[in-house]
């Protein structure tokens, strides 16, 4: 079963750890779709959320290899049906007097925010899951997307379990 998998990796917050993890992925022939990293509630520990496209057997292998890294404390493969996932995207889109109103309408429907207004462009901030982000991207495409930046997916499993 090939497809995207979200793995959440808790690591010691030390220098060089991210390089060891990303190096392991490339070395074992995996392409990282996205990667987001930041400290957790415990400042000594960081959480890395990695989206990787892989076949299930090789994913297992990479998870086992990840576990061998001394600085890796815990790995969870998140079940997509039981998580809250978010990604934040900033989109700079062409906008002039004739299109601005339409774009604002789209922004409204998606509950996105305008974060910068210029003569010939609008910058939009949107958070949500992949489907929502893809939706707004498609609708904005015709106006001409000038720049786009995404944080990469972050996710937590639902419920009180850690």
């Amino acid at each position, binding site marked *: 079963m090939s497809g995207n998998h979200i793995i959440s990796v808790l*690591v*010691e917050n030390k*220098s060089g750890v991210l390089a060891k993890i990303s*190096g*392991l992925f490339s070395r074992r022939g995996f392409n990282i779709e996205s990667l987001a990293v930041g400290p957790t509630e415990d400042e000594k520990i960081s959480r890395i959320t990695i989206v990787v496209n892989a076949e299930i057997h090789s994913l297992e*292998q990479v998870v086992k290899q990840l576990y061998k890294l*001394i600085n890796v404390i815990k790995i969870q493969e998140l079940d997509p049906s039981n998580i809250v996932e978010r990604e934040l995207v900033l989109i700079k889109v062409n906008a002039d007097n004739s299109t601005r109103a339409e774009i604002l309408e789209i922004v409204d429907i998606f509950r996105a925010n305008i974060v910068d207004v210029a003569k010939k462009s609008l910058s939009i901030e949107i958070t949500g899951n992949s489907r929502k982000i893809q939706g707004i991207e498609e609708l904005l495409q015709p106006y001409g997307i000038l720049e786009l930046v995404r944080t990469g997916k972050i996710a937590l499993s639902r419920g009180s379990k850690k």
Partner: protein
Amino acid sequence: MGKITGAQMLIKCLKEEGVEVIFGFPGGVVIPIYDAIFDSDIRHILVRHEQGAVHAADGYARATGKVGVCLATSGPGATNLITGIANAYMDSVPVVAITGQVATDLIGTDAFQEADITGITAPITKHNYLIQDIKDLPVIIKEAFHIASTGRPGPVLIDIPVDISKGMIEDNIKVELKLEGYKPTYIGNPRQILSAARGIYESKKPVIFAGGGIVSSGASDILTEFAHTLNIPVITTLIGKGAFSDADELSVGMAGMHGTKPANLSFTGTDMIIAVGVRFDDRVTGKLSEFAKNSLVIHIDIDPAEIGKNVKVDIPIVGDAKSVLTDLLGRYKELVEKKGEPDRKEWLDYVMALKKQCAFKPGNEPESLKPGYIIRKIWEATGGNAIICTEVGQNQMWAAQYFKCLKPRTFISSGGLGTMGFGLPAAIGAKVGCPGKTVIDIAGDGSIQMNSQELATAVLNKIPVKIMILNNGYLGLVRQWQELFWDKRYSHTDIVDSVDFVKLIEAYGGVGFRVTKKSEVESTIKKALEIDNVVMVDFRIEREENVYPMVPAGYPIDQMIECE
């Protein structure tokens, strides 16, 4: 409490870890460490190339079971260690490599002799450290030795900036190990062990496949008891050689590309492989899709990532070989008590007949100088009681095929990486670790030239290793492939008369012999072993002798080319 330098603290911590010897080579940023060594009673052996230091540490570790330690300066000193670190990594050998680094405030500036050695070695170390705060030094040393020697052993590198070696630290090494992300599993899961015991009990044609994990876990005795209780054949890997005595009636020897016929055919015939501490390298399995097609596989390994990596496993057991085999034997005996001894006579008879058919038969040996004859004579001269190191190539395969190892830690060879130039420095390390043992490097004329500068290390430090060169004037194993698969086009494999090896060893202050006739073999080996110095023997073997059997790369393991 007083203060000491970081370098003094390093030495103190090494002593605390029981380090007796360091193999190393100095340079600018490690002068503070060398200054501390000057006052210490830790033995330091000055090599002639840092690759020699790390291979020696590796050989020391394989021969003794202790952690081997090497030391090099920053930049080129550190990068010279790389091959040896990769070598130790591939064969899971506990080595701690210490490198100097430029001062903390110069890191990242392309300073003189700066190399990002932690970055470079990340894929070939079990773990590595760049010490950034002198306060962390004691705990990092402790962690490094712990990580290198526990779980699946492996090399750990510690990079120490010069300002940290020179800096001052409280003279107090009380530290606590706190490795949240590192907890190897030693005890096998009881349910898995029970189902393995049942599986083995039900099987009609089981074999044991023993690898380096048996050696590093010290499981040879329990393996022997296990094999004899079950009365089933034992196959080993190259690194597992010695894990089970080659002289044991149940031993069928090494499997793989140049494995024995009984070993390779046992893999085809078996219905249950009990694999312990092996990683199913492609040199062992041959064509993977054909490997042990009709067999269930129990895989016992301390490294969960090895299980299912190459071969599909039916019953995985993560744990230490010794502990798991002990438990498994217990469960198995209970089954036998309840249900009686299973009958596997037919299978055992089949394997033993193969073994008999392939056994060496004296009397029909040619007059020319053959490698097999030489190695058998080395065996006879030592009574099998020697530590055999090898280089890489045909010499290595002949050594593995003909030298019957009786005990673990007596066969030291570069398996996973196949590093030419490993044997001599590894032999030096093994001899330093086991001064009472005869240590022999079975060498090729090509490989020996890759680290022959270490002859100086051996002679000057009175480390009387014996180097037996099976000199065919070729990069023989490559030539053999060219002969068999490339139309005999011997492109750049003829190295005949590279050097006069007798003069070479004499130039270093050792003793050299040349043997061209079969009749001189025995007496020369005897002399070589008696002389209390480094001895090199140049055996001029038949030039185009091949290693057989041979399974061509990518072929099923039972499709062997046998003698011409």
